[in-house]
């Protein structure tokens, strides 16, 4: 069995390539949060408390659009619902963990660390294998906090003309690159995008994120059912 430190370091090494896109994402978040009207301390607190890129960007987007707190919180919940699928996959590898470790690891269970450690946990049955997940999560934590901080500082120096807020849709677009190759996913993407855009001004309480997501999932349900019968 490898030592805890070795497994932790392996987690750091394995997750490193995935950290490259996190750098611009964190910078953009820091810049935008200040732009939208949060104080530097609040911005830093968001990265420390929430520690989730998609959650934080959705918060900013809806906050700047004037959405109510209830809508913002439920939209953040909806964005996080994608994690439920990971849970079904990763929980079997972590079922023998003590509760205290589950409480700690949950904070670090972000997409990148999950993606990397899931592979490791599949192949490795050592008792200390979850240190891999902590290593990957801690790496991402350091990058996310430091780039948020840099974004806060640089924010004032970056001219608004650069249109850096456009990096937000691009970042989410980048997360979908593999889905653009699948026909049903493309239909779901178009339906959700159309509902959100056309409903932006008409869906009450700025709940367009939730309504569009439900419309997209409903489309997926119908299309996958037909697919099976055929």
């Amino acid at each position, binding site marked *: 069995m490898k030592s805890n430190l070795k497994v932790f370091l392996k987690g750091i090494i394995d997750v490193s390539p995935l950290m490259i896109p996190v750098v611009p994402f964190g910078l953009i978040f820091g810049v935008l949060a200040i732009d939208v009207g949060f104080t530097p301390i609040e911005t830093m607190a968001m990265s420390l408390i929430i520690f989730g890129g998609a959650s934080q960007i959705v918060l900013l987007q809806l906050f700047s659009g004037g959405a109510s707190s209830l809508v913002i919180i439920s939209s953040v919940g909806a964005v996080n619902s994608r994690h439920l699928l990971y849970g079904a996959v990763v929980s079997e590898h972590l079922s023998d963990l003590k509760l205290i470790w589950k409480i700690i690891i949950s904070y670090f269970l972000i997409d990148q660390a999950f993606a990397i450690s899931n592979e490791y946990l599949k192949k490795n049955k050592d008792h200390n294998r979850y240190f891999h997940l902590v290593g990957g999560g801690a790496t991402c934590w350091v990058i996310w906090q430091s780039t948020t901080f840099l974004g806060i500082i640089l924010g004032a120096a970056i001219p608004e003309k650069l249109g850096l807020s456009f990096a937000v849709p*691009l970042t989410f677009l980048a997360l979908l690159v593999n889905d653009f190759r699948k026909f049903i996913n493309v239909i779901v993407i178009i339906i959700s995008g159309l509902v959100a855009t056309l409903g932006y001004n008409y869906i009450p309480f700025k709940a367009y994120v939730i309504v569009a997501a439900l419309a997209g999932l409903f489309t*997926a349900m119908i299309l996958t059912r037909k697919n099976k019968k055929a």
Partner: protein
Amino acid sequence: MSNWALILYCGLITYLTRFSMIALIKKEMFNDRIREILSFVPSAIFPAIIFPAIFINDIGLIEIDDNPKILAAIIAMFIGIFSRSIIATIFSGLASYWFLIFVV
């Protein structure tokens, strides 16, 4: 609600999703059908953020003409499909956008 309460609640709900993933959810709880539907969640939710950010302008109206973001996003999408690289997608989109607003 104050900004601080908002941040705390958003943090709480994010944390609870993650915690429930490893502490509450068991593999048996999802049959293949539910898993299949859940796999569409990113495709269903991210466009709700992407599309309005491209098509809705600062004053909340849909803007199609004279909107460089549309072409830049299409370029980024194709770069993404072919490169499968997150970073190439983001930077090609930003570079095309800057090219369209500053050069063209």
